[in-house]
Structure formats: structure tokens, C-alpha cells
């Protein structure tokens, strides 16, 4: 079953990287949606069917922790798993995100396997053991 993903990060480059990593991990994604901050993310969530949210914490206008809090406070949205993908790695921040309703936490810098394992757990998907290498990865060490 394909699922729709919302990627929230104020860095367009990081959104592109996360999207690419999900794609080569073998997950069947129907649609990718992108947002640059929490406010834009909520607008997308109110208009589109989203199965999974991956969000940074540190963003302008509305940060990722506030976004998680608002998703969890909304009856229609609270069943959507939210995974934090962030440089903020302190135990305190992780606990704060969990208390607000985050389902998972991935620290930057990350390997593709980090995204793959977390998404497997979130979505109950089984994917192939090996990362599928697209042509642009031939020179990389992913």
C-alpha cells in the first residue's frame, strides 16, 4: 500500500535529501508533500491526506515541537505518526517531543538506514534488506 508523506524543514536541500532517501529505501510512497515550517505543514494537513509526517524542530514561524503539539491536539490529525528529523539531540528534547506526541526521532546527521528502520517501524512496512542504489549514488558512500 502506498502512503503519502509530508516533509517539513526550512531547508529545501534537506527536504530533497530526505525525499531521496525515502525513495531509495524502497518504501511505496504515493505522494510527497513539502512544507518550510509548521504553519505551512498544518495548511497541507488540512487539505491533503497524509499518512506520515517527518519534521525538523528548529524552523521559523512555527517550530516542529509546536507542530507536533497541534497535530496531537486535533482529533482528525492525531493518528498520523510524526517523526522528528533534527539536529536537536538532547535527551530533554527527545522526551519533550515524545510527550507532545512524536512517534519517532532521527538525529542529523543520519544514514539512509536510520530513516529506513524508523519508517519501517512506523508504517509496519517490510522492505528489502538492501538499499536500492540509484545512478546518482554510485559515487557516494551511502
Amino acid at each position: 500500500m502506498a502512503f503519502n508523506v509530508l516533509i517539513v524543514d526550512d531547508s529545501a536541500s534537506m527536504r530533497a535529501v530526505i525525499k531521496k532517501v525515502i525513495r531509495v529505501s524502497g518504501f511505496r510512497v504515493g505522494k510527497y508533500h513539502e512544507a518550510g515550517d509548521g504553519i505551512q505543514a498544518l495548511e497541507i494537513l488540512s487539505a491533503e491526506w497524509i499518512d506520515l509526517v517527518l519534521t525538523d524542530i528548529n524552523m521559523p514561524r512555527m517550530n516542529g515541537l509546536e507542530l507536533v503539539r497541534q497535530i496531537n491536539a486535533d482529533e482528525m490529525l492525531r493518528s498520523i505518526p510524526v517523526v522528528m528529523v533534527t539536529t536537536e539531540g538532547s535527551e530533554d528534547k527527545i522526551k519533550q517531543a515524545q510527550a507532545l506526541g512524536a512517534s519517532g526521532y532521527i538525529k542529523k546527521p543520519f544514514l539512509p538506514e536510520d530513516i529506513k528502520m524508523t519508517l519501517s517501524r512506523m508504517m509496519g512496512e517490510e522492505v528489502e534488506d538492501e538499499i536500492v542504489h540509484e545512478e546518482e549514488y554510485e559515487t557516494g558512500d551511502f
Partner: protein
Amino acid sequence: MRSSMRKNMKLAISDVLETMFFQAVQFVEEPLSIAEWFSGNESLNIARLEFAGPVCGAYYLWVPSGLAAVMTANFLGLSEDGIDDQQQADTIKEALNMIGGHMLSHFDEQGAYQLGIPEMLARQEGMAPVGREAGEIFLCETDVMRLAAEIRLQ
């Protein structure tokens, strides 16, 4: 504190550049300023990321354009030819964001520090003001070119 700060910062720079940008980093321990480290003519991308907490300050990252193009290509999985200035700037800011956050996560278990939003600077903005000591400087070499980082405390 200084030695643990330097150790954590070096670890963060290495981890981030190797994991996300496939750049192996060697640190050079020479008493040089940032201006002395670069030849003076290369075009430099300079990013700043402020942090606040028990101690306040900012991280800086200096990346020559040639290295920025390579890092961006590696990060995004694109060829260097297809990269624009905005993508390069975005990549450098994200690199600094990851370095700063990764460095803080090594000692900030209580979450007492807050990171700002990374921003690009003009060259003169990135240099320490005249008469003010530079902060902790990290001079690095990759296979491609040099880069530098700095932590300045208020």
C-alpha cells in the same frame, strides 16, 4: 571546558562532513587566523548560526565555492553542473546547522541551549571585528579544498 569544546566540535565537523557530504576532514593545528588560512582570492561562502543558553555565541563556517559545489552535489545526489547558488547556500547553512546541533548534543543533555536559524553572511560580516579576539578556530583540509569553522562566545 576549552579542550572538551574543541574535541566535540572536531567530532561534529568530521561526523557531519563525512556522513552527509562524503568529505574526509583533516584538522590543521596552526596558529593562523581565518584570513590567513584562505589565500584571499577565493570566493567564500560564510554561514553563521547563533546559539543561546548558559553561554551564548555563534558558530561560523567558511567554505570556498569550489568545495561548496562538491558538497552540494554530494548532498543532493546531483552533478556539479546542475547546481545553483541558492542550492549551495542552502547546503552550507544546513551543514552548519548539523555541525552546531551535533556539537551541542554531545554535552547539552538537559536541552538548555537553543539554536537559531542559520544565515549567510557577506565576507566582512564573517570576520571578527577589528580589535576583538577571534573565537575557537578550526582549520580543516578535505581532498578538495580547505574550509574553516569557528565558535565565538559572547
